[in-house]
């Protein structure tokens, strides 16, 4: 089961893991207020402790750029059964990464880093390290990826600070080595010139 939304938030804060600006709301008024506060465009997505794959049930609506669309999006998501609430989040563009952790049956907590959004499972371009680890180890994790060139502004893409990615990995490794969990997915983590933002969190206990 996924950890409660507020508990996930607390855990991330504890380990200095920065998420995209978001609000967890339960009614339409709050949804619109949140969207205004964040500034359009925004993303709406359902949150349910029992739902592991929300895109599969139409639980994510992106690129909402005005209040009319926001109202429609809210109604649509709110009609999905069994949800705990809706996350209103700033729409962020950039390079997509996946950062994760799991309990390995032999080695205990391990952290994973990969590039490529939805294609991550296809290309299997990921690296692992036993948690916890330091920045030097985190940098070697980045260096191990075939797609490491993406971080250097490949074909006009953004230049990503490797140190910032490394710090995110180190902080994730601290969380993984100190907290109780089964599996963790930060997917996607979106990187652009402004920084690195965890846009989706799934901590499974």
């Amino acid at each position, binding site marked *: 089961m996924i950890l409660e939304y507020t508990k996930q938030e607390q855990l991330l804060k504890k380990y200095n893991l920065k998420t995209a600006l978001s609000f967890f709301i339960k009614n339409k008024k709050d949804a619109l207020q949140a969207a205004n506060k964040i500034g359009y465009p925004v993303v709406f997505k359902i949150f349910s402790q029992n739902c592991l794959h929300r895109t599969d049930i139409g639980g994510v609506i992106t690129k909402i750029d005005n209040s009319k669309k926001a109202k429609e999006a809210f109604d649509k998501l709110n009609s999905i059964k069994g949800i705990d609430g809706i996350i209103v989040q700033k729409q962020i563009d950039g390079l997509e990464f996946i950062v994760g952790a*799991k309990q390995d049956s032999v080695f205990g907590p391990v952290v994973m880093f990969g590039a490529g959004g939805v294609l991550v499972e296809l290309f299997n371009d990921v690296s692992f390290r036993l948690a916890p680890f330091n920045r030097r180890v985190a940098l070697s994790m980045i260096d191990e990826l075939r797609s490491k060139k993406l971080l250097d502004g490949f074909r006009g893409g953004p230049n990503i600070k490797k140190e910032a990615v490394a710090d995110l990995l180190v902080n994730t490794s601290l969380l993984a080595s100190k907290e109780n969990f089964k599996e963790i997915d930060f997917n996607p983590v979106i990187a652009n010139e402004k920084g690195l933002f965890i846009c989706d969190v799934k901590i*499974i206990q």
Partner: protein
Amino acid sequence: MNQIFNPKSVAIIGATDRKNSVGLCLINNLDNKKRDVFFVNPTYTTLFGRKVYAKIQDIEESVDLAVIAIPKQFVEAVVDDCIVKKVKGVLIISSGFSEYDDFGRELQERIVLKLKESGIYLIGPNCLGIANPSVNLNASFAPNTPKKGDIALISQSGGFIDSVIDSYGFSLIVSVGNAAGITLEEYIAFADQDKETKVIALYIEGVKDGRKFFNVLKSIKKPVVAIKAGKIPQLQKAISSHTGSLAGEYRVFSSALRQAGVSEAESMEEMFDIAKALAWQGHCKNKIGVVTNGGGAGVLMADYLYDSEFELPKINAIDNVRYKTNNPLDIMGDATTLDYIKACESVISQRDISALIIIQTPQMTTTSLDNAKAIVEISKKYSKSIITVFMGNVSESIKYLEEHNIPNYTDPKRVIKPLKSLLKK
């Protein structure tokens, strides 16, 4: 543990003259007059004209190591005898313990407890044995006795040891078996302290405690090369995240090896290719010079180096030569030993070059052994890494090179993994 790996006296429990038996093989491997060897077997009174003791307690002299090769149902009683005799260590070759069934597991646990309480080391059970060539100890039933060398081979498979035992030189060989007493990690730490050992080679199928394994690999000083068998994924339990589905058991194992600074080999040949480079050559950086008397082999070498992100710095001009100064430096097919010396000295003394690869294709005018001798002399003068690629039927020269700690590979491709392992040494 030193007393176990260099015992003054050994008792073979289960000594026999029966052909093709473990007991006879142990006699042949152990009884080399370097130490006292006693035979124990209640069904004999003499063997090869020597006294056979019914029980180990009947031996008057002290016994450091008891090697047990008898059916498992008799092992516990014999272990009791060894405790009475106050041996330093017990090596149980017999199988049928935790690797076999619950009964065997319980039996093993009882034996482990008894020996632990008496402060006696346990090697095995279910193993091939151990060897320490530098003190002429071969307490195993391997088909050959290994040559002295600088590789400590620690293996979870006895058969793996059998298959390489006569191909390389070893400082230590340990078949860990069920590792019920001395653990895999303790053997690794012991090899790290062993004076003769320059590199530790591991054959691993699985480990009981991954963190313990990882921590010992991280903490030891000597370089390690490992081959991991059993990569086929186990049936996956319910997985609910991307991370879970991407993190196969082998992927994580391989990452742990890398994180601990271990070089992972993909084949047995590669394991020993890497081992000899790590044992004989020092750390190097990724800037490589190549000297060759064959154009094709040189270009192949350059391709492989380029693919693996090695750099080939420019070679400084060399006076009075008939070839162009490129890297790879092709000194032509009719290169003499003097040509080799001039080129190699010039390249290796270049500040921006960290390691030298010397290729030799056998041609009409090639004086292979002279080249090998010259290379060994150069290696004494410079502290940089040297690797050779002597190809063709020049086994005498290759033997000379390797006797002088220059690793040779008969295919340029085989240089890459060993060279990579030197980067992190």
